[in-house]
Structure formats: structure tokens, C-alpha cells
């Protein structure tokens, strides 16, 4: 196999020579292009990288360096590049590299918060993060200045900047079940929410900032009233059972509702107008209560069914409520009367308050004076049954006719208003007295006597049947016979009738003779003595005969 040892080796060819035109090998293009690509990527990355900002959060839950995104309007605008603990360990600092297009988000009043799945009664939010993991939400501000260090919000802001609408401030005594994000309803339409709340500086109330989204914000007028729409309002009225609530969510989570008075044409309220939150719709619509007047009532009867908070009505108008109920001991009478404290808001009576006499004294004295007059005219307190079904009582202040006179001490404090037993109790008493009267009637002896009388009556009737009736029948038969006889007598062909006719004819003739006689005598009165002349008419003798006849008939 050694080529040197081969015999007669074939002549190798002499190939032609061509020279390459390139001095530098073109293969160097490859790394050059690679370098260019790399360089362009670096430049692109450098150009597209936005500002670096840091956000401090209380906890880094859900934050993952290199993974957690920063989203604005659901567009990824940056990534968390690192999450570190702050120097003092009180919070975590997330470093975020924003995209260049999102550099405008880093304004002085921009807000950042971690979007995590949140489940509360108002709903479920951030469901998309349940699987995808948390992300950081941004709400850009409107400030001109830029900033790179932010403090993250612990809860998502209720109002995203740039949302059309207005904010208002509502004052309330107690936050109750309201919370950030609690809904605000207008005619049962959700139009806004509670953006924030804070305790007033003096600690005597809570100021809620609510946000009403456009276009509903124009329904908030200067005379709009707000009320707490939390919970359920169950009422049993004359028109039936009513259940009122704004929505299922408000039952648990609370909410606010507002309305303007009917026919209100006030201008829409400017932003940040202050309002007062009423307890419920009724009290919201009611005129302001004004100062309350505390009055004590003493009831002798049991007040089962009366509860603290029960209404106090005057002429059917709710003017107050029961604030306390206690038992008292009356040593002299060995009784336990109930002492009920009520609060009355005279201003609830409405415009009529203006008509009431004004006594220029302090308001307490004025009320006392006025009340004492009313008591003289029969004003009494009664515990009345408001509902027969449940036995709920309410206090009614009313003028009781023929009320027994009582003394009213206008100077006593608290004022004690005389009471009478309530309407239903009165009815009960009356019914009881009627029943006791009925009870007193000797029903047994009455029954016994009645029985005796009836048995006697029975005997009497038997007697009548057995004896009186047959005799009556006989008498009637005889009477009929008598009538028949009488009828026979009066018949046309009866002898009596005929005799009567003849008699009457005779009488007629007699009367004629008497007439002639009287005629004769009137013309010739001497005929009575001389007798009748020849030319004398027949009247004279007739008269005589007539006279004679009349004398005869008289005899």
C-alpha cells in the first residue's frame, strides 16, 4: 500500500488554476450578520424599555419576579422584575419595568394595586387571576409630574380615573354594613358605589365618598336625599304584607339609595356636595325631626307587645318612638306599674306646628305648658294594639272624651303624661263586664219557671181543645140557624114584608087626607065650625079627618 513502492505510477493530472477574487474570506459575513442581529436586538430592547418604577406593597402575595404583569385596561404594560423586602422589613418593594409605550402611566397620582381573586358579597372580581395568578393593576393619574416610587393600594380603587361621573360626600352616624364598593341605587338601578369612607375628625360620624357614574350623576340634585338601603324592610300594613329591599346584595352587603322629592326641579348638585344619609327611605323623606322631647308614661296594665322603638302616634301621625321600658314599684298600692319613656318630635306634625301657640320661654317650658293645656282637654296616652295578629302595641296620644281629671305637673322633669288603658284593653274590659253581667242573670231559675209556665199552658190548651171548642161549634151552628130565620123573615115574599108594604100605603093615603084637610082649613078656617060649604073644596073635611087620623095614629 505504499505509493512509493508502486511500479509505473500513473501521471497525475495538472489541474488548471483559478484564483479567488476575495481577499477576505466571505465567511466572515456570518459572524458580522450575527453580531448585527444581536446589536439590533439590544438596541430594540433598549429603545422599547420604559421607565423602571418601584411600588411598595404590604405583602408580596401573588407577586412573582419576572412573571407578574402590570396591566392597564387589560393590556400588559410591564413586568415585575424583582420583589424585595424593604430595608425595615415592613413592606415589600416590587421593581417594575414598564414598557416604553406605558411610560405615561408613571404619573405622580397614578395608583397601583394587586388584582387578586376577590370574593365578597357584592360579587366576585378578578376571576381571571384565579388561574393566571395575580397581576398589578394601574390607574393612571392626571398629574403632569412623573414619579418612580409608588405605594400600592391594598384594595382595588372603587373609581377608576377618567370614569365619567361625580363624587359626593354623604355623612352618616354609623357606617353599619356599608363598605367600599357598596352599591348606590337610584330607582333600584345601580348607578354608583361607595368609593371610600373615613371617620370624621371628631369621631362623631362617618363621611362616605360615593361616586355616581354618568349619566346618572345629574339625578343628584341639591335637594336629593340619601338613605341607607341595607337590609330588608318587611312591613305588614293595611294593604298587606310588604317586603322591600333594593337588591339581594344589599341585604347582606348594604347599599345606599337616593331620590329627589317629586316635582323637584333643583339644579344637579355640583361634585363633592355634602349630603346626610338617612336611616331609611321614610325618614329620609320626612321633614327634619327637630329636637326631641322626652316624656314618661306610667301604665298600670301589662305592656306585653310593646317594644323599645315602637311608634308613638298622635292622630295617626307617627311623632315619636318608645325609648325605654321599665318596671316601677308602687309601695302604697303594692303594684308594679310600667314606666315607658317616649321621645316625641313635635316637628313631625308638619306645618301645624307653626299654628300652635308660642310661649316665649325655653322650648322645654313651652312644650310643658302646651302639654298641660292638652291634658286638661283630655290628652291621654294609651297603649294600643297595632296589630291584632301579633299583639304589637304602640303608644297613641289622643284626646279621650270624658277622661277622668288628673293633675299634670308642668314643672316635673321628665314630663309625665297621664295614661288611660288602651283601646283594646278597654274593649276587653267592656266585654268582660258584659260577660259578668250575663253571668249574673239567673238563667237556671228562668228556665225552670219557663218550663212550669209552658206545662201550664199545655194544660190550658188541652182544656180549650176538649171543652171550649165543641161548645163554640154548637153556638156557631145555632147562630147560623138564627141568621137563616132572620133571612126568611126579611125575604121579599115574607108576610112581614107584605104587611109592611100595606102599612106604608095606608100611611101614604092618610098623609094625603091630612094634606087636603090642612088646605081646606087654611082657606076656610070657619069650616071647622060650620062645616063644608058647597063650593068649598074638599080640603077642609080632609084636614079634619087628617087631624082625626093623625090623632088616631097617635093613639
Amino acid at each position, binding site marked *: 500500500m505504499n505509493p512509493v513502492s508502486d511500479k509505473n505510477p500513473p501521471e*497525475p493530472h495538472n489541474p488548471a488554476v483559478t484564483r479567488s477574487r476575495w481577499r477576505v474570506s466571505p465567511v466572515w459575513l456570518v459572524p458580522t450578520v450575527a453580531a448585527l442581529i*444581536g446589536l439590533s436586538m439590544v438596541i430594540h430592547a433598549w429603545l422599547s424599555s420604559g421607565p423602571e418604577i418601584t411600588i411598595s406593597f404590604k405583602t408580596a402575595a401573588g407577586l412573582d419576579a419576572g412573571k407578574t404583569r402590570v396591566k392597564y385596561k387589560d393590556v400588559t404594560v410591564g413586568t415585575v422584575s424583582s420583589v424585595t423586602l424593604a430595608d425595615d422589613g415592613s413592606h415589600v418593594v416590587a421593581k417594575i419595568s414598564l414598557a416604553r409605550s406605558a411610560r405615561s402611566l408613571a404619573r405622580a397620582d397614578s395608583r397601583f394595586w394587586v388584582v387578586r381573586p376577590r370574593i365578597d358579597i357584592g360579587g366576585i372580581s378578578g376571576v381571571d387571576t384565579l*388561574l*393566571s395568578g395575580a397581576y398589578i393593576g394601574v390607574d393612571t393619574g392626571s398629574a403632569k409630574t412623573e414619579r418612580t416610587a409608588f405605594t400600592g393600594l391594598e384594595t382595588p380603587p372603587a373609581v377608576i380615573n377618567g370614569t365619567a361621573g361625580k363624587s359626593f360626600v354623604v355623612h352618616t352616624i354609623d357606617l353599619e354594613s356599608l363598605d367600599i364598593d357598596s352599591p348606590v341605587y337610584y330607582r333600584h338601578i345601580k348607578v354608583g358605589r361607595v368609593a371610600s369612607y373615613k371617620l370624621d375628625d371628631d369621631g362623631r360620624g362617618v363621611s362616605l365618598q360615593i361616586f355616581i357614574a354618568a349619566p346618572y350623576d345629574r339625578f343628584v340634585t341639591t335637594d336629593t336625599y340619601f338613605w341607607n338601603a341595607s337590609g330588608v324592610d318587611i312591613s305588614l300594613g293595611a294593604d298587606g304584607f310588604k317586603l322591600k329591599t333594593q337588591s339581594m346584595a344589599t341585604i347582606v352587603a348594604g347599599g345606599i339609595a337616593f331620590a329627589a322629592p317629586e316635582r323637584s326641579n333643583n339644579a344637579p348638585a355640583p361634585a363633592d356636595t355634602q349630603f346626610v344619609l338617612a336611616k331609611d327611605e321614610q325618614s329620609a323623606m320626612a321633614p327634619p325631626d327637630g329636637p326631641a322631647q322626652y316624656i314618661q308614661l306610667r301604665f298600670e296594665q301589662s305592656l306585653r307587645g310593646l317594644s323599645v322603638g315602637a311608634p308613638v302616634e298622635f292622630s295617626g301621625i307617627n311623632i315619636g318612638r318608645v325609648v325605654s321600658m321599665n318596671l316601677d314599684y308602687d309601695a302604697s298600692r303594692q303594684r308594679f306599674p310600667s314606666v315607658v319613656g317616649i321621645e316625641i318630635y313635635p316637628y313631625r306634625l308638619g306645618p301645624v306646628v307653626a299654628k300652635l301657640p308660642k310661649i316665649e320661654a325655653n322650648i322645654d317650658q313651652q312644650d310643658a305648658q302646651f302639654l298641660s293645656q292638652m291634658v286638661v282637654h283630655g290628652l291621654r296616652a294609651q297603649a294600643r294594639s297595632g296589630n291584632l295578629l301579633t299583639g304589637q302595641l304602640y303608644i297613641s296620644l289622643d284626646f279621650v272624651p270624658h277622661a277622668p281629671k288628673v293633675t299634670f305637673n308642668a314643672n316635673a322633669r321628665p314630663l309625665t303624661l297621664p295614661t288611660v288603658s288602651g283601646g283594646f284593653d278597654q274593649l276587653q274590659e267592656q266585654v268582660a263586664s258584659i260577660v259578668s253581667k250575663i253571668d249574673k242573670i239567673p238563667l237556671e231559675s228562668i228556665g225552670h219557671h219557663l218550663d212550669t209556665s209552658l206545662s201550664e199552658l199545655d194544660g190550658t190548651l188541652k182544656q180549650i181543645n176538649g171543652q171550649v171548642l165543641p161548645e163554640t161549634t154548637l153556638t156557631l151552628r145555632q147562630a147560623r140557624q138564627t141568621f137563616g130565620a132572620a133571612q126568611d123573615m126579611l125575604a121579599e115574599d115574607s108576610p112581614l114584608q107584605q104587611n109592611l108594604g100595606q102599612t106604608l100605603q095606608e100611611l101614604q093615603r092618610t098623609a094625603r087626607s091630612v094634606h087636603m084637610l090642612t088646605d081646606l082649613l087654611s082657606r076656610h078656617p070657619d069650616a071647622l065650625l060650620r062645616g063644608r060649604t058647597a063650593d068649598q073644596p074638599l080640603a077642609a073635611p080632609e084636614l079634619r079627618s087628617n087631624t082625626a087620623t093623625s090623632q088616631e095614629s097617635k093613639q
Partner: protein
Amino acid sequence: MSRPPRTQQLGLIACHACGLVCHHIVGGNEHVPCPRCGTALHRRRPDSITRAWAFLIAGLIFYIPASMLPVMYTDLLGNGSDSTIMHGIVEFWKAGSWAIAFVIFIASVAVPCAKFLVLGLLLATTQRRSRWAMRERARLYRLVELVGYWSMLDVLVVAIVSALVKFQGLSDIEPRIGILFFGMVVIFTMLSAMNFDPRLIWDADET
């Protein structure tokens, strides 16, 4: 010289393709076609060292974005994340899958880096006509060539996985630009290894 002669010493040149032996006319990089088959005849691969260097440098340049940029986007139940090679290794290591982390590390980091080192070493020593450990260097070269085929493992994994895992909404895997650079790295290192002529190692022996 007790050693057997080499073609160069005999003034001969053999065609790579058809094995025709010709007279070697001039030493250098001239383009000489084989009289029989037309394949370029050269004693050694022309510009072998230069080309190998060029491809090696290109591969090195591409290795930077390949390891910095994400190679794969994994979306599991909406939880999407880009992962770079190192990130993936750390993740698997943290999760306790040391074996997988090790495999990925070997395939994606150790092997390319080793290739860079080995090729760089070979090229440097050959360029300097070093006579140090020539046999071992030849073996090293064979190893690099052998490993070259398997360096595409990462690219294949990403390609297959991103083609298989397409469950709309549930899970989704997509390749990212980093894997392209990684593929380029592999190609360039293979090209570099191909262009390196191992016979050059032994050329140092002659002088």
C-alpha cells in the same frame, strides 16, 4: 524519517468525492476542480481555520440571545409565562426534578459551552501548530462532531411540545424567539466543526 509519507510529501492530492489522485500543483487556497468529477480539489479544506472561527464566533454571538431570551411560552390554565433556558432549569431544580434539570442543563448549557471551548481550543492550538496532545485533540474533535447531531435536542423538544400541546384555553405552548437563536447556535457550531479540518492537527507534526 521513519514515518510513512503523507500526500503532501508525495506532491499528490486526492479528490474527496471520487478518490482520483492528482499532482498537487501549488500549495494554497486555489480552486482546483477534479478532472474526473469536477469537485474542488484541495489538500486541506480551504480557509478551514478562518471559517471555523467565523462560524464559532457567530455561534457564540447567537448564544447570548439564545440564553437570554425566552425559548418557550407555557400557558397552563391561563397562567402564561415565558421561560428562558436557565429559568427552566432552575424551575425544574426547585421543583425537585433534578434529573430533568440535569438533562436540560447538559443538553442546553453544558454541551454548547463545551463545544465552544473544545472548538476554540482545537482552532487555537491548530492555528499555533501546537504539537500538544494531538491524538487526544483528534479524539476530542470526533466527539464534538458526534455530539453535534444531538445538540438540536432542545429545538426538537420545543418544536414537538409546541405542536402537541394545543389545548385551547387549558394549556398552550408556543416557541419563542430564543429557540431560533439556540438552533442557530447549534447550526453554527456544527458548521464550525465541519469546516475544521482535523488533518491540520497533524500538519504541525511535519515541521
